């Protein structure tokens, strides 16, 4: 795997990397893959009657499932010679930006991210902490069909403008097949191995659609009877990373042929389930996990084996969203 373009000076200490001791030379070695899968944890209370596991993607080193995507996007671009001497620009609701920013920082590469509305302040702060240039994009920037796509249009314009020729490379997670490949080659095989081939249904959100397409394709190739379920939020939702195709165009990488069923989960039940996951399962997850688990709870299922849902990220970045949704939980002490 080709990683760094810079060669840092390391003091001699005879302690070489040893994964068995969880000792690593570089944080990038912690990004999940089949040899280092993220954990699968059973849901014991919130989906009664349905055997279900959550795949905790926040065990990735930069905090989300997007660590896999970011690594594949950059490795692919590097292999094609698209990164040489270039800065990066990408449209992201935060997690891809955070992973790209960490990887770019390790390479000494500049990153500009265009951010749609409705991204928690915590993520913007993290992006700036990592040295990224952050361009918040107003919803009404583009008088186009899909107002929520303004951040994508802005990133595209930065990458393609003649005045910037040669300066920027855009990974474009919405259209880059390496986003799908990340999940086809890592997330999907991990789930297959971790369930010993017994997984009967897989549930993930509509977002860039890299996860649902990549994992869905892998599992369908192993066993076409595995149900692939996508979760779609309401228009105007407060579930960062998810997409409602009533207000955003479906990404080019979405392959609907691998999806058996789409379940819409609105914000209120998604946030309610998120809080149940904290209180009943001890899982400190982001709100999109709540939407995915709510969909699992609604599955009409007499599954003969486990359902696996994705937990894309943890909850720490969403304190401001939780405080807004559950003001009673945010009361300041006198």
């Amino acid at each position, binding site marked *: 795997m080709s990683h760094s373009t810079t060669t840092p000076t390391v003091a001699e200490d005879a302690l070489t990397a040893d994964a068995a001791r969880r000792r690593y030379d570089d944080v990038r070695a912690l990004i999940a893959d089949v040899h280092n899968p993220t954990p699968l944890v059973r849901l014991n209370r919130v989906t009664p009657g349905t055997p279900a596991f959550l795949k905790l993607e926040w065990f990735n080193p930069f905090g989300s499932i997007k660590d896999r995507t970011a690594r594949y996007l950059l490795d692919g671009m590097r292999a094609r010679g698209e990164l040489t001497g270039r800065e990066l620009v990408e449209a992201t609701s935060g997690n891809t930006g955070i992973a790209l920013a960490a990887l770019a920082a390790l390479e000494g590469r500049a990153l500009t991210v265009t951010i749609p509305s409705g991204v928690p302040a915590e993520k913007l702060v993290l992006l700036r902490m990592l040295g990224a240039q952050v361009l918040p994009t107003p919803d*009404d*920037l*583009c008088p186009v069909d899909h107002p929520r796509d303004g951040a994508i249009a802005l990133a*595209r314009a930065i990458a393609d*403008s003649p*005045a910037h020729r040669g300066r920027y490379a855009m990974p474009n997670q919405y259209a880059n097949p390496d986003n799908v490949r990340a999940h086809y080659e890592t997330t999907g095989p991990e789930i297959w191995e971790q369930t010993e081939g017994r997984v009967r249904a897989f549930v993930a959100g509509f977002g860039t659609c890299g996860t649902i397409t990549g994992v869905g394709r892998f599992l369908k190739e192993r066993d076409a009877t595995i149900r692939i379920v996508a979760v779609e939020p309401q228009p105007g939702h407060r579930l960062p990373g998810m997409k409602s195709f009533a207000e955003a165009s479906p990404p080019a990488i979405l392959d609907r042929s691998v999806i058996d069923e789409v379940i819409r989960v609105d914000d209120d039940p998604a946030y309610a389930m998120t809080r149940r996951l904290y209180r009943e399962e001890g899982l400190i997850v982001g709100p999109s996990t709540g939407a995915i688990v709510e969909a699992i709870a609604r599955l009409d299922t007499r599954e003969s084996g486990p359902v696996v849902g994705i937990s894309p990220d943890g909850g720490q970045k969403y304190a401001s969203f939780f405080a807004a949704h559950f003001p009673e939980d945010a009361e300041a002490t006198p």
Partner: protein
Amino acid sequence: VSSPSPTPDLELDCTGLLCPLPVYRTRQAMRRLAPGGVLRVACTDPGSLADVPAFAREQGYTLLGVTERSGVFAFDLRK
């Protein structure tokens, strides 16, 4: 294409930038102007002929005029 405006208070060069960058930069530049101030935006993307006037309308700014010289469109906007 209409008549040129008085000397602008602020000029913004968006030549060689594709939409929606000119509108994005214009939005930022207008914040630096006092009410009544005039911003001149130079663009080359033909899309700006639709986008900049639409932006001005939405935001309640007055489009004083548009001139074109050798493929460069100059928009004068009053805040």
